[in-house]
């Protein structure tokens, strides 16, 4: 299978060393993969299927804020304190993914600066991309003219 997303972004050597720590997992549609506030000790690379990221809204159903598909990185809260999920994740369809234990990956990164740099660069890019998307949505582009303007 042609690598996509994180796996395509990593040079071959670091990718192979990372993949030695990965294991194939599956989630049925509707499965909760992690919960907001839970300990962020794993991450996943989605091979196929879709995952909704959601946020708890007291008194209402959780609000879906983004959908991730094939090739996308699921989870980055494992990388930095407080190592807690700031969103929940639910499979919207049967999901196949590579699952990684964060502590194992972080330990490998300690010994492997090339992987450490490539992985960190990719995760920062992902965070930046999602931040840009969130800011764009704040503009309420498709709303009535001026509805997203300040003041």
């Amino acid at each position, binding site marked *: 299978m042609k690598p*996509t997303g994180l796996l395509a972004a990593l040079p071959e050597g670091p990718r192979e060393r990372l993949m030695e720590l990965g294991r194939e997992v599956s989630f049925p549609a509707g499965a909760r993969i992690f919960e907001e506030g839970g300990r962020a000790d794993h991450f996943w690379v989605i091979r196929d299927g*879709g995952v*909704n990221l959601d946020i708890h809204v007291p008194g209402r*159903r959780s*609000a*879906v*804020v*983004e*959908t991730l*598909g*094939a*090739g*996308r990185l699921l989870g980055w809260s494992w990388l930095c304190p407080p190592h807690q999920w700031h969103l929940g994740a639910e499979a*919207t369809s049967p999901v196949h993914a590579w699952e990684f234990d964060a502590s194992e990956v972080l330990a490998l990164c300690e010994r492997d600066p090339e992987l450490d740099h490539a992985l960190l660069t990719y995760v920062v890019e992902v965070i930046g991309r999602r931040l*840009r*998307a969130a800011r*764009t*949505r704040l*503009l*309420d*582009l*498709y*709303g*009535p*003219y001026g509805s997203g303007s300040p003041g």
Partner: protein
Amino acid sequence: MTAVPLPYRVVSNRPETTDTRTLTLRPVGEALPAFAPGQFAMLYAFGVGEIPVSVAGLQDGALTHTLRGVGAVSRALCAVRPGTQVGVRGPFGTGWDLPAATGRDLLVVAGGIGLAPLRPLVQAALSTPRNHGRLNILIGARTPEDLLYRSEPDAWGRPYCGMTVDRAGPEWTGHVGVVTTLLDQAAFTPHETTAFVCGPEVMIRATGRELLHRGVPAQHIRVSLERNMHCATGHCGHCQLGPLLLCRDGPVVGYDRAEPLLAVREL
């Protein structure tokens, strides 16, 4: 193209969303020349005023326009009853030019009401499947309730058609996020793809940037721009965007021309 509006009769006025309607018009007498997908008409609500509206359907000699009621004229047009007459001038502007994309993969990216000018392009592409490669249609909207032509994507069938919304309600089981995130699911060979993009200009810039990053040539990214069009004949200058008069040189232009202009502040 006519300088004087020709009378057209409203044969239907159906709601798309809470503030958006689709009008179907037929000529009372003489008909305007044929429109091409991507071109626009000047619609005149008698006694109120005239606005530019892209053509959203071209079937059986009728003109279809989808418009959102946001100002005096568009609200008046949204309120017209079947049987009422409106004035129509056109066709104006450049079209999407689907024949120039013959043999290439097609990528249609629509944001909000930007799907309306792309609809006749999609219909034309669906009717000539042998003329092009894979067809991908990516649609973004504010909420599920804001999606236009909701019954049509199911009938489109063959192409990949992805829909995403910025804000999902509990009933929505589809994708959530900006429209560019759907590109990962689309099947196209970037350097052999022609993209057609219409929506808010921030969305056009974000999509153009992402398509360039993926290797779609700038001249093969066709975007539809919008400015304040008055005369629609390139004389009054209201729709000027840098060196372009968008009523004449647009609204559809290549991203190689649009990108530097969209990067200029207050242009």
